[in-house]
């Protein structure tokens, strides 16, 4: 029998890196392999944007955003919705995958549990970015002037937002450990969280109580960050959402760090 010595086992760092790459790469391959997912990823937000945008457009008067069409106002909200739905879809699969799927052999493998969280988060973030980028191709229809877009800010906001949402989704998937339970939390926490982020209506148009909820909602910084990056100097003055790019980025960094941290902490504890 061949004697396996210690030297034949790669370093912890290499094993963790391998775990991250396997999980992230697998998510991307799976995404492109499921064509309905790519089509759905593009079609769903378009329908959402057009239907809700047209429906509310006539009746919605934005006090602070004179001359701003509702479809324009709503566009950054749909971008964050794409990120949210994409990460929900990616993390809900963790529940099945952990019990009777590929994730079992990853957990039994030599990578640390931290690397499992990082790998799955990286994969889910990548797919969310891909989907959001596809939708962003429609930006000119929302009168976004591509030359005026702050692309680095947009990329940073989207990456941090997707990472944070993945962390929340992953922690919930691990903790709840049932698909129906996850759906329940999704409809009472995640979807309302998106509605109350300033995606559909501005904070100042809400009442005092709802307004305070919206102000402390971390998803708000995702929406405002995207809006700032897309419309920058051209519209944010008339929209007057306040704050700064630095504030959005710091808030999102904090949100992402806490969310991924909680996910890693939960996953690291073997049951």
């Amino acid at each position, binding site marked *: *029998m*061949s*004697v*396996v*010595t*210690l030297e034949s*086992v*790669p370093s*912890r760092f*290499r*094993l963790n890196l*391998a*775990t991250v*790459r*396997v999980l992230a*790469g*697998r998510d991307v*391959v*799976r995404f492109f*392999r*499921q064509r309905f*997912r790519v089509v759905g990823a593009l079609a769903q937000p378009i329908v959402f944007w057009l239907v809700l945008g047209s429906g509310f457009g006539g009746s919605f008067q934005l006090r602070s955003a004179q001359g701003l069409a509702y479809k324009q106002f709503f566009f950054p909200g749909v971008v964050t919705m794409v990120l949210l739905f994409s990460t929900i*879809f990616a993390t809900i*699969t963790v529940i*099945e995958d952990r*019990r*009777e*799927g*590929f*994730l*079992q*052999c*990853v*957990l*039994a*493998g*030599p*990578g*640390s*549990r931290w690397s499992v969280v990082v790998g799955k988060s990286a994969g889910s973030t990548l797919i969310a970015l891909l989907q959001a980028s596809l939708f962003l191709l429609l930006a000119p229809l929302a009168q976004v002037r591509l030359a005026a877009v702050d692309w680095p800010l947009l990329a940073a906001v989207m990456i941090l937002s997707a990472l944070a949402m993945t962390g929340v989704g992953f922690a919930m998937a691990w903790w709840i450990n049932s698909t129906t339970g996850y759906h329940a939390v999704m409809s009472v926490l995640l979807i309302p969280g998106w509605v109350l982020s300033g995606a559909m209506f501005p904070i100042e148009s809400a009442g005092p109580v709802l307004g305070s909820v919206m102000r402390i909602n971390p998803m708000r910084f995702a929406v405002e960050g995207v809006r700032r990056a897309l419309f920058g100097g051209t519209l944010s003055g008339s929209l007057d959402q306040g704050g700064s790019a630095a504030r959005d980025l710091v808030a999102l960094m904090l949100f992402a760090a806490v969310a991924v941290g909680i996910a890693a902490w939960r996953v690291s*504890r*073997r*049951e």
Partner: protein
Amino acid sequence: MDAAVKTTSAALAGEDAAQAATGALLKVSDLSRRFGSRLALAGLSLEVRSGEIFGLLGPNGAGKSTAFQILACILRPDAGRVYFNGRELSLDDPALRARMGVVFQRGSLDDQLTARENLLLGARLYGLPRPRATARAEEMLQLIELSDRAAEKVEGWSGGMRRRLELARALVHQPQVLLMDEPTQGLDEASFRKFWAHVKSLRKVSGLTVLLTTHRPEEAEQCDRLAILDAGRLVALDSPPALAARMGGDVITIEAEAPEEIRRILRDRFQLAGALVDGRIQVERREGHALIPRLVEAFPAGRLNSVSLRRPTLADVFLKLTGHSLGADQPTPQPARKGRAA
């Protein structure tokens, strides 16, 4: 446990000398785990020798799957120590994990990937560089006779093919220990035989040590040594023939309309203790063939529906040792898996 089991991967040097001293490649000592008020594993200790096929036999709830999940690093034990090559290791130590390959009962292939991709990911997960991973994947595909299906998505594959691919995936990084949980659950007879032929030939090629859980007597027969578990405790540990020798002799099975009455007559007239299993009377008896004519003559025509004689199986051994049947809490076979939604 994590506090008790120290990480000593650095101490693995000189492991062969230590192994020679203990004789065990993998040693588990006092492994315990409680779920609420139920003690699933009550201080299990055992030693798996290098190169052997070691089975944990017992019905559902016996604790074997808990033991498997602890060794696979999915579950945390409440107490216990694990030694590999004589050195105590933490269960999540990469040095231990990298030396183990795991086959899960529920299956852990990615349906959206091809057979080759599944093997490649398995290899990459253990840090194999890409060229080596590719070569190993091809090698394994050949060994399990699935080379011609390598480029197919696993989605829709039969249970037998899936299990073979799982086996290949578990071994693609050349582990020393293969850990399997009910590996042939739900497989038909032909797939079962093929799966085990592959396990045995792979063992020959690589000098693999195999540790598996099972509740199938015919699977337990494949093992070199067998630990019989009941209610979280080790009841017996020996080779299958030695365990079978614990039976008095042959097993005679009697089918009758009134089994309780026949059983009473057997006790009173023949001094035979018969056990009632699934409505049939089972009697254990040396030189069983000599008893059969006497039985048939003793009961008037029509009282007995059938009398049969066979060599004892491991299911009989289990019944004798624990007082209940191996299939008592048997789970229903898993339905053939269909393609899962992503």
